[in-house]
Structures are given as C-alpha cells and as structure tokens.
C-alpha cells in the first residue's frame, strides 16, 4: 500500500509542476494590430525576426532593415513612387569635383532629445568602418579616404594563414568635422552617385549614448526617424510608435507600427485575408497560383515593380562556361514570357537588361536580341562554341518558388537546344552561398539583386566590376571597368548615366549573368487600411499609409 501512495502523490506532483510551468511565464503584452482609435491606430506589418542586433551599420536583411528604416532618418530620403532622392537631415550636400563633399545639417534631434550633429554622423561612420567592430555594412564606407587604415585587408586573402593586420588608425582621415552642423567627406576617387548613396540605412547617425552603452542601445534603439522604439518580444513582434516631434516634411498619420514575426508567409497570408494583419509586402507563392489573392483580397492588393532583378549567374572561372557564346546561347534558350505565365501567372516581367526599370537613367531593351527567345540561335551559338552538354542549373530551394522557376528554365533550355538540362536543388541558402563564396560553383546558379540605393550604378559596380564584392562569377572585362570608373568620376549624376549605360550594353554582350525577370511584388492589406503604397524598396511607405477608423 505504501508504495502506491508514494507513487500517486509523485504522479500528482509532477503533473502539477508541469501544469504550473505552463500557466506561469509567457509574459509580454499582446499589442495587437486589431482595434485602435481613429488616427492614432497602430498598424501591424508582416516581418521576420531580425538576424542581428538593431544597429544600422550591422543590419542588411529585411526583417531588421524594416525596423531600422522606421527608426532612423538619413541625410537623404527617397520618394515613394520613383525613389528620387531628396535632402532629409541634410540642409545641403555640395561638391565641385564629385570627390570632396561638404555636408551641412538641419536642426534635428534624436528621440532622446540630444541634437543630431556632425559628430553623430562622423562617429557612426567611423564606428561602422572600423574593422574590429565587425559591422556587416562596413564595405559601404570603403570609398572614404582612410578606410584602408581602419579596415585593412587580409594580405593573403581570407583563406590564407596570415591574419589581417591591426588597423593603423581608428578614424577615417576623409571625414572632417567643420562645426556642429557641417562636416566634409573626402573620397579616394570621384564618385558621382555618392549623395544618392547617403540615403542607405548604413549611413544613419547614432546618438552619443550608443558609444557609451552599446548593449543598452541594442536593447532599446534611439534613432531620429519618424517612429520611436517602444518594446520588443523576441520571436513575436517589435512595436514602434509615431514620434510627434519628427521634423520631416511628410508626417505619418498612423499612431505606430507593429512588426510582427511569422513562422511562415502562409500563416501571415491567412491572417491578412481575415483582417488580423494589416499589411504584407510580398504574398506567398501559394496565393499567386491562379491569382487567388485577387479574389481573397479583392480591392486590397497591388501588383507593382520595385528596384530588383532576378538573374542566373555563370561561374565564368569554370572553363565550361568561359566562352561568351555558351552564355548567350542559354540566354536565348529561355522563353521568359512562357516561364512567367506558367510559374508566376504572368505576374513577372521578362528582363531585357541588368538594370531594372524605374531608375533615373534606365534604358529599355539594352539586351537586344540576346534576351529574346530564339531556339535556332541557341543551337547555332552552342555549335559554334563546340559546347556539348549536359547543362545543370542550381538554386537553393528553401526560398519561395525557386524550385518551380528553375525547373521551368531547364525545360525551356532542353526544348530549345536539345541538350539535356537538369535542375540541381541545394537544400539551404547557407549551403548554396558557401559554394558560391568559395568560388566552387560548377554550374550556372540563381542570383538576384535588390537596390541598396536607387541608382543604376548600384546594379553594375558591385556585380560586374573586376573583383567587386558580389561579382560571384569572377567576370572581368577591362573595358567595362574603365567605363564604370568614368561613370563614377563624372561631375554629376546625369552626366554619369551615359557611361553606365554603355557599360551595361558591354556586360550584356558578355552575358556573365542571364537577366531573367524584373522583380515585381504582390502586396496585400487589411480592409481597415485606406492607403497602402509599396515603395521602390518593396516596403510599405509608412508616411503615406492611412487607416480608415
């Protein structure tokens, strides 16, 4: 009898313990998107968990980027519709030679009341560039004089045994503070697009408190943007409220924004349809089949282009794909329109260049015949190059829809050329990028590019210049390099276009990447939102968003 009683009480004890722990915990408030009072309503926006601490120079993925963009205002901002740059925190940005810039500031303050001064920018940029701080966006500062001193390169490459030397300096010599509201920037070479670049979030100012208490800042970021940090529940949401004292021109009319993390886009879509979620900038592929979203979200969806492009890159360093004729042949072997109709229900536009439309200086049809479906030409080019198959295309398949579209490309190539094409899936993006970064790719692979800042330069320099940071295929052409350099040193943005356009034409002749589609995005919003505009960076424009309650 005794043992039974002990056992019973033990059983009850364990159950109670489990039950109690279930009912305990679980803190956090449920500041939801539903409800709200009139103009002060907080809207909920689909997001993903930030991958890094919320510091502008260390955030370059979408989930954290959304929050950073709302928390900080930069020297320059971009218009919603055409992404044209205009001065925000900057009073003026002046240069005579595209190399030395003088920047003056308006009277702004951070959310904590401290003024935004020249040192807010200079210190933040020096922090971002300084090698030991290990910031993800440090390369954006590489054009400033003295960058090499604070962020020295590894003498024998990343894989070599020697470590990068210690930085010779802590600050970049190219940044000089003139007074509280004025500072100068000297670049190592002329760069005409520099004022446009200044709108990128890596160039955000930081308050003095960041440098004394970085952990405290990461826990509760202080910015100078239209929205102020309220709180965060990891894995669930980040809540911001409208900052009434924001001096920007266009004031937000919403009360705040809740960036809500979702386990999957499908779950978010279900919430969006039933009105539990207010905005989603990219609907999941399952809702695009048969254009289901147009029924589910009748009158509250949009299909717009943004500054992005999808491409297939070649490992130009692999002898098999070293001949440009092979690369051109595959480009004309892909029936872009048919693939778009089949996989995307016609929602993507076939690309005819490596620069997306919507940018100042964009030229239609730069690719000419090389992006037009032509099976005869494909066969002829392959025969000339002496290419004998088989062809393999590869992509990670953890991204939405990658598998479907690449299988369709392969079918198109096989049909056009008669050479068997196989799609080789790679399970994860990490595995996929490991091979590419190590320059071990042996097959054409999926690539894509979204604008960091609205300039055709951003779609050329980082991708096609010899040795550029994202030149994954190691493409190199001295003529292209020369034209890009000329574009960079042009006295003004307008005068640089000619050089960049010429470079784009040359690149397309060499076809180191096949342009496939200009990026479009299908956004959806809840019935209570009366205006929801998706900007050129595929984000909800919070400043023009309105709620009808």
């Amino acid at each position: 009898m005794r043992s039974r009683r002990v056992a019973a009480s033990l059983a009850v004890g364990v159950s109670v313990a489990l039950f109690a722990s279930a009912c305990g915990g679980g803190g956090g408030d449920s500041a939801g998107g539903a409800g709200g009072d009139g103009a002060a309503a907080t809207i909920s926006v689909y997001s993903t968990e930030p991958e890094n601490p919320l510091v502008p120079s260390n955030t370059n993925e979408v989930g954290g980027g959304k929050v950073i963009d709302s928390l900080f205002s930069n020297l320059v901002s971009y218009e919603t519709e055409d992404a044209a740059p205009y001065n925000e925190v900057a009073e003026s940005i002046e240069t005579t030679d595209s190399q030395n810039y003088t920047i003056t500031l308006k009277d702004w303050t951070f959310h904590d009341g401290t003024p935004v001064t020249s040192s807010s920018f200079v210190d933040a940029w020096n922090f971002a560039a300084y090698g030991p701080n290990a910031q993800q966006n440090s390369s954006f500062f590489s054009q400033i004089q003295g960058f090499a001193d604070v962020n020295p390169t590894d003498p024998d490459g990343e894989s070599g045994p020697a470590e990068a030397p210690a930085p010779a300096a802590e600050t970049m010599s190219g940044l000089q503070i003139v007074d509280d509201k004025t500072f100068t920037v000297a670049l190592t070479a002329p760069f005409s697009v520099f004022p446009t670049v200044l709108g990128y979030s890596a160039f955000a100012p930081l308050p003095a408190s960041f440098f004394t208490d970085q952990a405290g800042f990461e826990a509760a970021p202080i910015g100078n943007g239209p929205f102020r940090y309220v709180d965060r529940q990891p894995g669930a949401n980040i809540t911001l409220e409208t900052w009434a004292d924001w001096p920007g021109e266009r004031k937000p009319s919403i009360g705040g924004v809740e960036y809500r993390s979702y386990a999957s886009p499908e779950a978010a879509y279900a919430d969006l349809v039933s009105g539990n979620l207010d905005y989603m900038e990219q609907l999941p592929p399952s809702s695009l089949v048969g254009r289901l979203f147009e029924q589910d979200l009748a009158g509250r969806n949009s299909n717009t282009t943004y500054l992005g492009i999808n491409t297939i890159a070649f490992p130009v360093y692999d002898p098999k794909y070293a001949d440009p004729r092979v690369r051109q042949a595959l480009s004309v072997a892909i029936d872009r329109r048919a693939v778009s109709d089949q996989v995307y229900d016609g929602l993507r536009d076939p690309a005819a260049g490596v620069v997306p439309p919507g940018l100042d200086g964009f030229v239609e049809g730069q690719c000419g015949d090389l992006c037009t479906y032509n099976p005869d030409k494909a066969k002829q080019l392959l025969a000339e190059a002496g290419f004998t198959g088989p062809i393999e295309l590869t992509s990670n398949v953890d991204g939405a829809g990658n598998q479907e579209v690449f299988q369709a490309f392969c079918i198109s190539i096989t049909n056009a050329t008669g050479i068997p094409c196989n799609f080789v899936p790679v399970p994860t993006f990490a595995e996929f990028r490991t091979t590419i970064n190590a320059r071990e790719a042996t097959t054409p692979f999926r690539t894509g590019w979204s604008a960091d800042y609205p300039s055709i330069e951003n779609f050329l320099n980082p991708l096609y210049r010899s040795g550029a940071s994202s030149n994954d295929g190691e493409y190199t052409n001295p003529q292209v390099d020369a034209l890009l350099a000329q574009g960079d040193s042009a006295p003004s943005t307008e005068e640089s276009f000619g050089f960049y356009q010429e470079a784009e034409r040359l690149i397309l002749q060499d076809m180191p990447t096949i342009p496939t589609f200009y990026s479009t995005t299908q956004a959806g919003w809840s019935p209570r939102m009366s205006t929801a505009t998706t900007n050129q960076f595929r984000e909800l424009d919070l400043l023009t968003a309105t709620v009808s309650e």
Partner: protein
Amino acid sequence: MGRYVLRRLLQLVPVFIGTTFLIYALVWAIPGDPFAAKCGDRPCPPAYVAEMREKFHLDDNIFSQYFQYLGNLLTGDFGETFSGLQVSELIADAYPTTIRLALLALLIEAVIGLAAGVFTGLRGGGFLDNLVLVSTLFLIAVPVFVTGFVVQTFLGLRWGIISPTVSIDPTWGELIAPAFVLGSLSMAYVTRLMRTSIAENQRADYVRTAVAKGLTPRRVVGVHLLRNSAIPVITFLGTDLGALMGGAIVTEGIFNIRGIGGLVFRAIVTKEGITVTGVVVLLVIVYLLMNLLVDVLYAVLDPRIRLD
C-alpha cells in the same frame, strides 16, 4: 519505490549528456557555413565573419565547443543567439505556449480517444465500431500538415469560426483547434489501442469472475476492465506528451504559434547550435520525466507490478 525513482533519476545524467552531444554534433554537421548566408547575395565582410566565429567558438573542434557549452549550461547560462538575444529568454517565452498546446492536445486525444476506444471495444462489430475504424484510419493516413491546412482554411479563412492563426499570447480557447490538429494522429492510435485492449480483456478470467460475483456492469467495466486495459494506453500517452512538444514544428508553423517548434526550426535553419541544444535539453528532460511518470503509474494501476 523511492530508490527506484532515485536510480531512474541518476540514469538521466548519461542519457542527457549523450542526447545533447548528439544534437550538438548533428547541428554542427549540417552543411553550409552559417555566415555564408547571413548577408544575402553578397558575402559578409571578413572582419564580421572572423569576429562572429571567434565569439561563438566556431573554429574550435566540436568537443571543445560542446564542453564549453555544457559548462555554461551547468551555471544556468544557455548562451545567446547570433542576433544577441538570450536563449534562456527565448525558451522562457516559447515554452509555456508549447506546454499548454501539448497538454491540450493530450487532453483531447485522451478524452476522445479513450471514450471511442472503450465504446467500440465493448460493442465490437456494430455500426459505431465501423465508423470509428474508418475515421481513425483516415486520421492516421492524412499527414498533420494537411489536417492543419484544412482546419485553418475552412474553419479559419472560409467560415470564420476561428482565427486562422493564434495571437502573440494565446488563450486556451485559441489553442483548441491547433491542439486538435496536433493530437489527431495520436487520438486515432489511442482509440485503436484502447479498443483492442478492451476487447481482449473482456474475455479475461478476472472479468468473468467479477461478473460471476454479481457485480454491476458499471463496476466491472469501470474498475476491473478499464484499469487493466489502460496500461498500454498510458504508456503511449506518456511518451506522446514528449513527442507532442518536440513534434509541434508543423502545427506551430501553420498556426503561427510562438512556441518551441518554431524556435527550434528557425535555429536549425540558421545553424544556431546553441539554441537548438538549449531547447533539446529541455525536451529531453520532459521526455525522460514523462517516461518515469508512466513507469510509476504502472504500479498504481496494477499492484502486481513491483518497481523495487
């Protein structure tokens, strides 16, 4: 009894170390560098990668990494994620929701499963028996993600009876539909197990004796038959609670429940071995304790079973 429990608790230590090491090694073995994918289509700056590898000891060999981790764990430090969040905080946020979901699923499968099993076991071969047979076979045949999407789409999206996803801090009511989805498969098994067990024991000597003694049918079934037939089912239900907590990845994904499943899934994708191991540590503990509880319950149900 007490010695038995103590011995079992001591056995937990090697099992615990073994499982966590296995998990750590498996996460370590996932191909692909975690920092290859962190900066999108552009490679991360070398200084950033070097700093992160240093900070998370990724260049050490796996044994050294594991023992550093275990050492920290013993002092109550679960480590932090690549984004600088405390793993212990993430677990503390996620665990209560998952436990509630699992308990609710267990409750649903136990109540419905046991009831259906008992009724069909007592009166085998009738219409009800066939109906339950077909519906349980159906539930076993359909994968959880299908059940989940069907429930979400129809009950949530089309008919608006439930919210298609649960809120950040879900109430018990919100968790009923996901718990039903999560427990549906086991519910079918419980029914089949219970039915077989009841049908078999109905012909046992002690039941005949009880009937012969002139006991009421209620007492025969309720005390004599049920208690003996429940043993295999209790084993199943006990281990199932552990499985429900670990296996909730799909259900939590569909209904966007901020629980352990989603946490561990995200951590596996981003190769955050520290988070994965932290969660698994707790899952292992729950699993082992549930097994212990089940074994102890045997003695309660059947006094002939001696544990010492």
